[in-house]
C-alpha cells in the first residue's frame, strides 16, 4: 500500500495535533458540535412538547414502538463507536492498514443501522404513522430522521476518507480529517443515546 511510505518514522505521535491547522480543525469541530447540540436540542424539545398529540385513532408511541428493533440498532451503533475508537488508536500507532479496516467496519455498521431504520420507518408507515398523521408523528420523523441523515452523512464522509487515505496515505493533513470524523461519529452515538432513551423507552413507558 502506498500509505506505508509515510510511516518511515516521520509521522508524529499524534498526527492530528502536529500542525496548527490540525489543532484548529479539532477545535473548530468542537464548536460545530456545540451548534449540533443546539440543533438536536430544539428537535428534542419539539418532540417532547408534542409527543402526546396523537389525534383520534392514530397509533400512539406505546402501540407503535417495537423495542427489539431499537435494541438491535442501539447495539450496532454503540459497537460502531467502539470500532471508530479502534481506528483512531490504530492511527496513533501508525498502523494505516488496521485503521482503514476499522473504518470500513464502522461504515458497514453504520449502513446496517440505516437499513434497520429504513425498515422501521416503513413498518410504521404501514401502521398508519406517516409524517403528517399527527403532531407526534411529524416531530418523531423530524427528530429521528435528522439523526438518520447524520448517520448517512457520516457513512459517506468516512467512506470518502478511507479512499483519500488510501490514495494519499496517512499524513499530518489527512490525520486530522480522520480524527474529526471519529469525533463526529461519537457525537452521532451520543445523540442516539438520547433518542433511544427519550423517544423510544420513555415513549414505551408512556
Amino acid at each position, binding site marked *: 500500500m502506498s500509505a506505508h511510505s509515510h*510511516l*518511515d518514522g516521520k509521522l*508524529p505521535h499524534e498526527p492530528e495535533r502536529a500542525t496548527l491547522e490540525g489543532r484548529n480543525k479539532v477545535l473548530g469541530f*468542537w464548536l460545530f458540535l456545540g451548534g449540533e447540540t443546539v440543533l438536536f436540542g430544539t428537535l*428534542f424539545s419539539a418532540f417532547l412538547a408534542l409527543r402526546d398529540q396523537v389525534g383520534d385513532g392514530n397509533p400512539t408511541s406505546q402501540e407503535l414502538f417495537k423495542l427489539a428493533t431499537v435494541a438491535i440498532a*442501539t*447495539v450496532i451503533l454503540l459497537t460502531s463507536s467502539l470500532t471508530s475508537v479502534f481506528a483512531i*488508536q490504530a492511527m496513533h500507532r501508525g498502523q494505516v492498514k488496521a485503521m482503514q479496516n476499522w473504518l470500513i467496519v464502522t461504515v458497514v455498521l453504520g449502513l446496517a443501522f440505516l437499513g434497520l431504520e429504513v425498515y422501521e420507518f416503513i413498518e410504521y408507515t404501514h401502521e398508519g404513522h406517516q409524517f403528517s398523521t399527527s403532531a407526534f408523528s411529524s416531530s418523531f420523523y423530524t427528530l429521528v430522521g435528522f439523526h438518520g441523515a447524520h448517520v448517512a452523512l457520516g457513512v459517506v464522509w468516512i467512506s470518502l476518507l478511507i479512499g483519500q487515505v488510501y490514495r494519499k496515505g496517512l499524513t499530518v493533513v489527512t490525520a486530522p480529517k480522520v480524527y474529526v470524523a471519529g469525533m463526529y461519529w461519537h457525537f452521532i452515538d*451520543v445523540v442516539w443515546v438520547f433518542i433511544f432513551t427519550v423517544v423510544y423507552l420513555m415513549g414505551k*413507558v408512556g
Partner: protein
Amino acid sequence: MSNHTTHSEEPAKRHKHEGPKKHIIAYVFSMLLTLVAFATVIGGEINTSFIYILLIIMAIMQVIIQMGFWMHMKDRGHLFPIVGILTGVFVVFTIVIMAEFWTWW
C-alpha cells in the same frame, strides 16, 4: 510527546500508546447501561416518574463514557471543548424546559 525514536519496524512499544483494554471496558459499561435501560422498561411495573429519572441518569452516564473516554474529553488540554459543549447543553436544557412550559402552561 515529541521524543521520536525509530517508529517503523517494532510497533512503538516505548510510546505511551493506550491499549484497547480501557475502551473495551467502557464499551462493556455502555452495553450494560443499555441493557438495564431496556430491561427496566420491558419488565418494569415500577412507577413512571421513577423509570424516567432512572433512564435519564443512565443516558447521562452513557454520555460521560462516550465524551470522556471516546472523544478524549478527559485528556488534558480540553478545557475549551468542555466549556463549549457545556454551553451547548445549557442552551438545550433551557430550550427544552421553555418549549415544554410555553406549549402547555
